[in-house]
């Protein structure tokens, strides 16, 4: 698993998730502090709305949303983060490479 560091979930643009998939990621974890515990007050509230709309749009377009995990993990929850990452990596490994999406990328010039 590779890590992309941003100051707040509010900063996470859905286009970043698209780029991750575009670069061949088979699974994506989008995570940050719990609502109400945001150090920037409302970053994660906006993120939550964005993710709700984004998830539905991706489902409508047929993207396999089992590969994208959204989760609230605070800085104090080291153990829970480790457990989440292990669970998600196992789950994505079980799903295998995202061939459907790879074909769309493959057809492109990159």
């Amino acid at each position, binding site marked *: 698993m590779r890590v992309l560091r941003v100051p707040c979930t509010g900063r996470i643009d*859905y*286009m970043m998730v*698209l*780029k991750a998939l*575009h670069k061949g990621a088979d699974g994506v974890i989008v995570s940050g502090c719990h*609502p*109400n515990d945001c150090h920037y007050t*409302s970053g994660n*509230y*906006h993120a*939550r*709305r*964005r*993710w*709700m*709309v*984004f*998830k*539905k*749009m*991706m*489902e*409508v*377009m*047929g*993207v*396999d*949303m089992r590969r994208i*995990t*959204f*989760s*609230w993990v605070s800085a104090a929850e080291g153990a829970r983060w480790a457990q*989440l990452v292990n669970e998600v990596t196992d789950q994505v490994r079980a799903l295998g490479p995202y061939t*459907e999406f790879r*074909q*769309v*990328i*493959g*057809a*492109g*010039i*990159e």
Partner: protein
Amino acid sequence: MEAVIQRAKELLEQGEVKAVLGYAKGTGSARRPHFARQAGQLDKLVMDEACVQNLAVYVTKHEVKKLGKVAVVALPVTQRAILQLMAERQLRDGSLAILAVDDGAVKELDSASALEEHLALKAQVLNAKDKASLADLEAMDQGQRWAYWQKELSRCMKCYACRNTCPMCYCDHCTMDCNRPQWVPVASHGIGNLEYHMVRTMHLAGRCVECGDCGRACPVGIPVHLLTIGAEETVHELFGQRAGHKAKLDYALSTFKTDDKESFIR
């Protein structure tokens, strides 16, 4: 239709407006937008079921703004688009004389609050055909939906007609034109088309007035309007907010409630 022409003539002659924007006969049964700058050109205006395009897309163009005050023959979709554009500060209040045409009746509105009250009278209804298509999409499973859109989007050649016909896509420098960084690949290959339509849908979620012009504009007949209308309905379902209903900006993705309910975030 006479009442509209009559009122437009008065406004033009008194110099209140510099032009009247309405519909005129196009080739065959089509209708096209028509700018009448003198009284003489008014008689070309027509108003019937075939007039469906959303004329609001023109009012944000610099050339039209330079004309000064313009009268617009506004179907409900156009009214909603104009109100949303005012909420997003693209149109100054009072810069348009809106001739609201609701199934025959004409009403003149010239302020955002008047427009808001007028729109509140009638509930916004999604037309049956789109509703059915959205239901079909909902009924498919993930694999089928993926195949459906891959087939449809494979015809997309990135002509951007859907973007250019949409009244809400008024940005001078669109993200699609941005190349540092080039978030969305410009080429019309698989990934380029997929990401373009995904991002366009996200940009319209909570801002689309569901006029359906994008679907009509697509030269290769991709039902792209289903994506944006679907996203708008999702936003309404999730947050109860809708585009083109309030003079003051009430955009779902820049507001929040501390207890927004969802079930997928672990």
